[in-house]
């Protein structure tokens, strides 16, 4: 079961250099043909200074940095029993190619709940506030993981 004593713990920063190719790759993997994510000219016509990161782009730094497996191990969560319950983003500024974004994962809560069918679950909420190279807040990601026991 998840180690509730780790509530409040902060983990090593995720540092990620944002590239135009990776933004395009993400849009293509989703199958999003919106030209603002693919072509600089189309993005600039819409008032962006380059192609902006699409809404779910923050999966990229989180997963490629292997931050989540480290956190899951540290909290002694059974990886085979964990489900992604909820995901929430708050957007403060656009994330653009050339930005270096830094996010510090923080465990904000670990709570035990009982499902309708009587099964016990741990609900683990992790927040990551991302800032850019100018120390400006760009976005916050909040992830709820559900560990079945």
């Amino acid at each position: 079961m998840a180690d509730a004593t780790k509530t409040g713990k902060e983990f090593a920063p995720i540092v990620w250099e944002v590239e135009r190719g990776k933004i395009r790759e993400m849009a293509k993997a989703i199958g999003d043909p919106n030209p603002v994510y693919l072509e600089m000219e189309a993005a600039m016509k819409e008032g962006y200074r380059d192609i902006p990161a699409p809404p779910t782009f923050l999966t990229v730094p989180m997963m490629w940095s292997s931050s989540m497996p480290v956190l899951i191990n540290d909290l002694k969560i059974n990886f085979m029993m964990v489900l992604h319950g909820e995901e929430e983003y708050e957007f403060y500024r656009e994330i653009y190619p050339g930005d270096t974004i830094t996010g510090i994962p923080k465990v904000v809560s670990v709570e035990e709940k009982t499902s309708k069918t009587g099964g016990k679950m741990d609900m683990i909420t992790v927040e990551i506030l991302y800032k850019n190279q100018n120390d400006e807040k760009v976005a916050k990601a909040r992830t709820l993981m559900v560990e079945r026991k």
Partner: protein
Amino acid sequence: MANDLYFEDVNVGDQMPALSKGPILKLQHVLYAGASGDFNPLHTDDDFARAVGMKDGVITHGMLVMGFVGQAVTSWVPKRCLKNLSVRFAGMTRPGNTITITGAVTEKRQEASGNIITCDVVARDEAGDVKIMGRFSAALPSRQG
């Protein structure tokens, strides 16, 4: 801007344009694994998925389905207007599913941070089973400048 959506033109109860995605191919799971960095074999290896209890094999990345929601939302409201997007994963998605995202405006208000609309969104498969329940808020420009 080409596709501006104005606060005055949006009313509570208005529907967001629906978006259908799919049928989802296993190949798309491989593309998404590479793009996102989520290499959990639950999404790409049928033998692994069956060994952990998924009798029909691999399941789709939840974040790919949230990506579809993001596509639907920012096809209607420009990305730069989006203030927040949250989802609850309500059911597993599998290759072969076609996911349709719909949404409706639930609230409209003017506040210091701008002209805010809030919308509920839902992603369902071809059988009508709910995969994602979500919500977003956006700050829209006003015709009054």
